[in-house]
């Protein structure tokens, strides 16, 4: 098996140029987005079947009177979770883990049940009504197999998106965090070290995860957490219903069937 790979996206370096989005679409042959004017430079909107990279423009008010509005930008992508919610619920085994430890949807196996969409806590997966399948970032699986960097990381002009062996990315992230902390940016933090068993897409954030539409570490829970309580609740209901049936349907001095 090849070494696990990872992205490290440093949001402090992102300038919102969307080169990653364009490179991703170009390499993967994804359709363009319909022209929609939003109240933001973010006219991609969200990750979905046709957008596997999405540069979020997060507008926040500041206490600085000269600069009342601040932008945080983050190039979002599938996190390729170590414990992936989508992979856990997929009934057809269409979603698999590759030799690079990434999460991949086999298009010839997926039957479009969309359970993975309801499971992904990052809203990454979209349903392509043309192919009838679920689609998301493949981590440029075809490029990885040919020893090439993913298209987005190759195109990023500011090195905001870094790619490499996962351990190396973790080390790079830790070093960068230490540098920012030394410079007084105490709010900087790394996202993705603990969530879902460790993500293959690490992010350096300058605010709490929810600001970037990322669930907090405490909220990063798997769908399977509800299996036992759900079935147990149903089993208790079944027992109560059986007792109710016994009371309602019991023989009352009638002949036995």
């Amino acid at each position, binding site marked *: 098996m090849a070494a696990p790979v990872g992205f490290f996206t440093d949001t402090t370096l992102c300038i919102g140029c969307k080169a990653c989005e364009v490179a991703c679409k170009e390499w993967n042959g994804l359709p363009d987005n319909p022209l929609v004017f939003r109240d933001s430079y973010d006219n991609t909107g969200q990750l979905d079947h046709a957008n596997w990279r999405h540069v979020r423009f997060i507008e926040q008010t500041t206490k600085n009177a000269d600069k009342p509005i601040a932008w945080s930008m983050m190039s979002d992508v599938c996190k390729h979770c170590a414990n992936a919610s989508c992979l856990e619920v997929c009934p057809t085994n269409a979603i698999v883990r590759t030799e690079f430890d990434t999460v991949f949807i086999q298009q010839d196996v997926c039957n479009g049940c969309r359970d993975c969409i309801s*499971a992904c806590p990052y809203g990454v997966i979209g349903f392509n009504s043309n192919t009838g399948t679920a689609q998301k970032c493949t981590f440029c699986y075809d490029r990885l197999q040919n020893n090439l960097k993913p298209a987005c990381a190759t195109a990023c002009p500011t090195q905001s998106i870094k790619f490499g062996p996962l351990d190396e990315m973790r080390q790079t992230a830790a070093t960068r965090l230490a540098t920012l902390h030394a410079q007084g940016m105490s709010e900087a933090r790394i996202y993705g070290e603990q969530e879902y068993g460790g993500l293959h897409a690490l992010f350096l954030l300058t605010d709490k995860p929810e600001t970037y539409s990322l669930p907090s570490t405490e909220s990063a829970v798997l769908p399977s957490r509800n299996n036992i309580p759900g079935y147990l609740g149903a089993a208790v209901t079944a027992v109560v219903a059986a007792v109710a049936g016994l009371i309602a349907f019991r023989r009352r001095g009638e002949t036995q069937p």
Partner: protein
Amino acid sequence: MPGEHFVVAPGWAWYILLYFFFAGISGGAFVIGTMLRLFGSAADKAASRLAFIISFPLLLLCPILLTLDLGQPLRFWHMLIDVKTGTPAFKVYSPISLGSWGLTIFGLFAFVMFLAAVGEGGYLRWRVLAGAGRVMSSTLGKAFMVIGAIFGFFVAAYTGVLLAVSNQPVWSDTWTLGGLFLASGLSGAAASILLLSRRRREAAATEGKLMEADRYFIILELVLIALFLITIGGVVSKVLGGGWILLWLVVLIGTLVPLIGEFRPALVRQLPPAVLPVLVLVGVLALRAVIIFSAQA
């Protein structure tokens, strides 16, 4: 909040709503048919037959609806067979996977009991069905029904667990949906049998028992609705807000009016007899609709 996620809705709509509705009633009808055989008297045989006779055709609708909902309907069999290995695709953590197998196995039980009921009732005079009544009353027949009823419980309930095993707000914030769909499925099944038994004189003998059972199932359903609303906590406004309150009103009418009618028959004496069971069925559908649609809005 139990888990703040940033999910996208899966776009489960009408096919899934109808599937959940028919699965609940089919599973519930099989369970009621079995309980009538086990606990009831000879006079309840006709109602029990009716329960088995409606269970199988309603179950047949389920895979059709599920398949129509798929993006790639011709790949429906990928739910059961891993196409890469040729081995059974069985994932214990995935309720859709378990449910696909549950539906298939329950289908076998529902089909056999459908034939047995048709044979016992004399609706089909095939030689192979001649001894159906004797077999149904035997220990083996009863054991078969009990095992089938376990799968019936599962088919009626797992759809709720399927919703819960996700990261969608509302669905994943509660453990109650499996039990709630089971209770309402049983209530809908009792109402369906009641509705049909009024057209068959021999089954009308069980009417009182079915009404009593429905009363208990509705009470169970109301308790679980309360638990559902309590357990979803912070996202309760998503389910009760906006126009969804109208669907909840339909749910309340479909539970409280039949309940009041069964406790105080004088209050509903003026209504045609079919009204209360129909209200129950509309309530069962509305309950599933409000839970499926509001969480995805």
